[in-house]
């Protein structure tokens, strides 16, 4: 039986950026920009250390939506703005909400905040086909 999604439905997902996460992501994505894998380069850039690839922060937001929808094949669109770098040891909490279900399209708005409550993503939206 098809699952019903309603406006206002919510979901939550928590991810920690462990020390090696930027390295794993560099290996899998090919993004070896030193700012992600070399603490000293991050310090020199005034960031206080190496920062996680924004696309990994985004991948977790999409993962949150996939877990909610239950099927990665339904995702039709994902977009985010990177508002603050994610640092090693940060814990990111994703909170999603169904904003619309019109026309067989599920629109999910997702907030992503670090342990200090600062938004690391803005205007994060994932859309999925439903029905």
């Amino acid at each position, binding site marked *: 039986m098809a699952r019903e999604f309603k406006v206002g439905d919510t979901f939550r997902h928590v991810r920690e950026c462990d020390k090696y996460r930027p390295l794993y992501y560099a290996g*899998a994505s090919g993004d070896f920009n030193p700012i992600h894998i070399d603490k000293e380069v991050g310090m020199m850039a005034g960031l206080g250390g190496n920062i996680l690839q924004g696309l990994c922060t985004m991948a977790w937001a999409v993962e949150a939506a996939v877990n909610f929808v239950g099927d990665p094949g339904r995702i039709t669109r994902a977009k985010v703005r990177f508002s603050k770098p994610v640092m090693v040891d940060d814990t990111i909490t994703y909170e999603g909400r169904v904003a619309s279900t019109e026309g067989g399209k599920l629109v999910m708005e997702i907030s992503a905040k670090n342990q200090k409550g600062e938004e690391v993503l803005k205007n994060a939206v994932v859309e999925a086909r439903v029905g």
Partner: protein
Amino acid sequence: MLDKNAIGRSSPPTLNEVEKGSIRRFAEAIGDYNPIYYDEEYARASGFPTIVAPPTFPASFHSAADLRELLGVGIKSLLHAEQAFDYERPIFAGDRIMVSTKVADILEKPGPAGKMDVAVIEDEGRDEEGNLVFRARRTLVVRTSKELT
């Protein structure tokens, strides 16, 4: 200031072969252990022809584009500000996807320390029949030399 003449510059399509091992490594790298990315039988039982790639997997694709060449600035001076993916269909193990990159736009935007140069880069992935599979748009902000020193 970025050269507005760069708008429309593009790279020739480059073949990306989607391998099961690459999908597994990508899913592991983001810590996502959904069996649909690892287990062929599970993926088939879920209605797919084979293993599916996580939606942001195109982040691992390569194209012939050299951003330094396309934009005329160093890679290190670019900050990733926005990202969007649009999918025509899921990406599967065994897909052969041609990826091309173009400079979609160059603009000036107000920033915290005056005007910022912004470049919008669009990647497009097509299957071997030429059907669109995905589009990815990156918005990159050019950091000034002051911030780099």
